[in-house]
């Protein structure tokens, strides 16, 4: 039941405000977490048919009449669905305790479920315009969620995010329109087929530039990144985790690369442009991260930098590069989700996010400190954690494709990444205990549990890297590497 990925969260979200009137906290908590757990199990169960058949198509029949609701599932989609469900589940677990700061759990969960539904929809539909629509669904929900705290800083950040996002969506829509004008249809398959016969490289170049700008803004690619360092810190911690861990990747990276690989086809020109932008993102954001005093701002810049890695790898075009990029996407979603949730824990425990005020927390709150360390080391690429493998594969892929300069950049930026993460560790957790924090206690159960689960994932994926790779990453990479053939194969 692949459609449940979209319908179930929407239906539950619609019911939640009413349920929220009856039970303020318990039922919304349980319901939301159960929904996401169900989706997670569903995504795992779908591995088998994908493995055996390569892709899955489903139609809905409405009272016998063939209503045109179609879903195409292949390795790439399934991988994204799995990532979305997994990280969202941990985030909602975290929210069980964290939302005490804000109240109105039912509203929050409803919006969050709509965002999840939007992301799932974006990932599943085989149609250009529907991608745009589901993009908007997720985006509207995210605007509201960023502003959820209703403080002046949050509202301002949300508004800026909204205004910039709207510009991006407008360009995406313009590009879709141009492609519709060229080919007369909007479904992936038809467009892929028609574009192959058409000789419209210049116009396609313009369309691609618009796509890069639009989806690049959503993915926070430099120079379209400026909204992220303001939006992510002001949002509540679980939302920062959702945005940084999932939304920018789904609505940015997935959408762009799905269109580039499966619909239009990767070309050397495009590869050059995307790789250059990815590399610029990596370096600029890493350097900017070094000077930050607010934990979440530093993490936000780090997200920009890591998305640069993902885009750099995906743009190489070789199967190994794609595999490395996708693996890094997964690892970053898990680890960055963990780090943002962790910053929420820190904020809950101490009330501040300023690194210069924290210090020596490691002794008092070992669980938070330990999970933070695991997440940081995973992103920095330290073995035996998961991030090491994905970064290694990316570097090997770069060398294999003879992009030695980029490989060097990737390696050097890794060191920078390690540095600023160690800075967080040192400033927040090690060192002498700042007197203000003498009486702090560990974070509440669900918050710590979510952190621990994600940290364990970082560790386990690093150690049992092979089965994860074979099950999830390899089919996804194959699906992309087949290029336009993938979509033509669907036979809708």
């Amino acid at each position, binding site marked *: 039941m692949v459609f449940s990925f979209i319908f179930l969260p929407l239906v539950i979200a619609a019911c939640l405000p009413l349920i929220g009137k009856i039970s303020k906290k318990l039922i919304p908590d349980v319901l939301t977490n159960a929904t996401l757990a169900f989706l997670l199990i569903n995504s795992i169960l779908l591995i088998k048919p994908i493995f055996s058949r390569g892709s899955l198509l489903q139609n809905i029949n409405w009272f016998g009449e063939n209503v045109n609701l179609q879903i195409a599932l292949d390795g790439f989609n399934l991988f994204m669905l799995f990532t979305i469900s997994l990280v969202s589940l941990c985030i909602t677990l975290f929210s069980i305790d964290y939302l005490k700061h804000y109240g109105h759990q039912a509203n929050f969960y409803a919006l969050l479920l709509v965002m999840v539904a939007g992301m799932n929809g974006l990932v599943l539909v085989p149609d250009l315009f529907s991608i745009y629509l589901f993009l908007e669904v997720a985006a509207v929900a995210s605007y509201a969620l960023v502003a959820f705290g209703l403080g002046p800083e949050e509202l301002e950040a949300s508004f*800026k995010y909204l205004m910039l996002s709207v510009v991006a969506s407008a360009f995406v829509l313009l590009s879709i329109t141009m492609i519709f004008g060229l080919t007369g249809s909007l479904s992936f398959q038809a467009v892929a087929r028609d574009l192959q016969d058409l000789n419209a490289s210049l116009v396609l170049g313009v369309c*691609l*530039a618009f796509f890069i700008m639009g989806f690049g803004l959503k993915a926070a690619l430099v*120079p379209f990144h400026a909204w992220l360092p303001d939006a992510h810190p002001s949002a509540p911690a679980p939302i920062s985790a959702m945005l940084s861990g999932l939304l920018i990747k789904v609505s940015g990276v997935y959408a762009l690369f799905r269109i580039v690989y499966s619909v239009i086809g990767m070309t050397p020109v495009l590869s050059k*442009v995307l790789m250059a932008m990815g590399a610029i993102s990596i370096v600029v954001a890493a350097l900017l991260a070094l000077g930050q005093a607010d934990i979440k701002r530093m993490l936000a810049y780090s997200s920009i930098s890591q998305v640069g890695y993902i885009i750099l790898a995906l743009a190489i075009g070789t199967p190994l590069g794609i595999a490395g990029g996708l693996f890094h996407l997964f690892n970053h979603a898990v680890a960055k989700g963990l780090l943002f949730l962790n910053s929420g824990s820190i904020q809950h425990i101490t009330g501040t996010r300023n690194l210069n005020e924290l210090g020596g927390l490691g002794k008092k709150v070992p669980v938070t400190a330990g999970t933070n360390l695991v997440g940081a080391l995973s992103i920095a690429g*330290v073995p035996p954690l998961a991030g090491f493998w994905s970064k*290694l594969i990316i570097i090997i892929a770069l060398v*294999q494709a003879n992009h030695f300069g980029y490989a060097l950049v990737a390696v050097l930026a*890794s060191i920078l990444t*390690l540095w600023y993460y160690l800075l967080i560790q040192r400033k927040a957790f090690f060192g002498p205990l700042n007197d203000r924090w003498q009486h702090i206690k560990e974070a509440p159960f669900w918050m710590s549990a979510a952190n621990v689960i994600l940290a364990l994932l970082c560790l386990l994926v690093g150690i049992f890297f092979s089965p994860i790779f074979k099950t999830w990453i390899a089919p996804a990479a194959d699906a992309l590497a087949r290029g336009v053939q993938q979509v033509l194969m669907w036979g809708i």
Partner: protein
Amino acid sequence: MMATTLLWPIIFPAVMALILFLLPSRIKLIREVLAVLSSIVILYLGFSLFSLKNLTLNVDWLGMGINFDFRLYQFSAFILLALSGFLFLTTLYSTIKMKDHPRIREYYAYIFLAAAFSNGAVLANNFILLIFFWEALLITTYALITLGLKPTSHRTAVKSLIIGGLCDFSMIMGIGLVWASSGTLTMDAVHLEPHGLAAAAFILMMIGAIGKAGAMPFHTWIPDAALDAPVTFMAFMPASFEKLLGIYLLARISLDFFELKVGSAMAMVLLIIGAATIVLAVFMALIQKDLKKLLSFHAISQVGYMILGIGTAIPIGIAGGIFHMINHAMYKTGLFLSAGSVEHRTGTTELKKLGGLAREMPWTALGFSVCALAISGVWPLNGFVSKEMVFHGALETGYPIFAIAAWVGAIFTFASFLKAGHSVFFGARSTEVPKTRDSQWPIVLPILILAILCITFGVYNRLPLENFIQPILAGRAEPGEHLDFTAGALNLFTPVAGVSMLCLLIALGLHFYGWKRGGKKAYLASEPIHHLPVLKQLYDLSEARFFDIYEQGIKFLVWLSRVLFKFIDRPIDFIYEKVVVSIGRFFTGLFQKAHNGQYANYLAWTIGGLIVVLWVMLKLLQ
């Protein structure tokens, strides 16, 4: 024995590490007994695997040539045996020395984890596997240094991590190039000529190997760690494990992966690095006033001999380098352990405060003296044999400068150990330290074991040379030539040996002169050298960390970060002041708040970016 036995040296220490970590801190005796027993088990594993000589384990793992591939052969078996031996000695020693450490659980866990990772690195036959284990050692080193509990321990630990990380990344790049050149990731299938790309790969991997071993310029964390880390860590890692691993990799790089020719450019690089390390480090060692720091600089200096030996590319030189590796591990560990013994009883290792302890700590003094004579290359100890082999090789390269550098190093090595031994154990009894007695047997026994081994490996050098070293170089001899190093090993009456003895006498003279000049105080014996004209400036710069590339590198990066931030910040301000609204399409947000126009900024960047991308795409598509 089944192939999976190869996994035991890795899994067993890792499991023991976990168990030792989980035991509550108060159960001391059981922990100590368990640790020592486990190390004995690992040592037994090492012996039995060594007797087996050949075993491989190959499991398909990830495709694309990345396999779970382990290989036991003479060289790796030998290193494995050595690693387990040192693990045993260190563990025995630690039972007393680290007894009251507050984080004792972590200490044993890290030690055994490091052993597990090291065994994995030695046995690995696939480059990716090697990288995995090699990198993992960075974590255990970091953690062990922080256990020193000094205020600067953390900073030194980060320094070791960053320097190690840089060397490791260099090694990864080198491996990537090897893969590109040879198409395989299996270590024993690679054999390249070092030209062009392969030469670059050689240099990169070499950096990784010598960085782990602690050669210049990647050495700067070791002297810091000498003060900031526990002394048992110093004996464990920089003295033995890291040398064994680093030189093992360097030997494999020079012998197996790449065909190192005599006098080739790559060989010259090794020779120069080796010679420079020997000389520069020994000069630094000479003037040290703390015993542990002195020993750590010597550790760096002796690595130079090993690199020099391998760089000669001549069988006797290479054999000498590898033999020096194991010898050095033995006597340097012995020296660090005796320094630890002194620290244990007196609380300090500053040369100024110690003196005349030989009467009260006879066993420690004996062990120290034997090891000190060994490191100085005194006949007939093991240091003499390996150094002579290196000298022979260095002379045969045709560039006597390298041999001269090695001899200069020998002079000052002996001089500094005369100073050290004299200051700590002999001479007048210092008044600053209370009366004491020798350390307990778990501390003294390892030192004596190592001292005896030093003597054995020297006198009865057939044992190590034939069983360990010669098999490594098998097949490398010229046709017809018989590989035998033992014949003339102890021959004192050759020109080479004669020069070495002369060096020792010069050193004796220097020490005596300095001692007299310093008012009969042993620790001032090196001051005349210290205050020589050019040397004094260099020494001062060195103390100010001028030559420390890590420190300089940090300063540079901070500066760069600041500059780049300004370069991004100023243009944003520029656009804001002068070019407020959109350059391309149009939406000026009516957004009125304190940061007026900041949204417009972002939009300007966005639209600007779009225009750039558009232009680039169209340009490239034309």
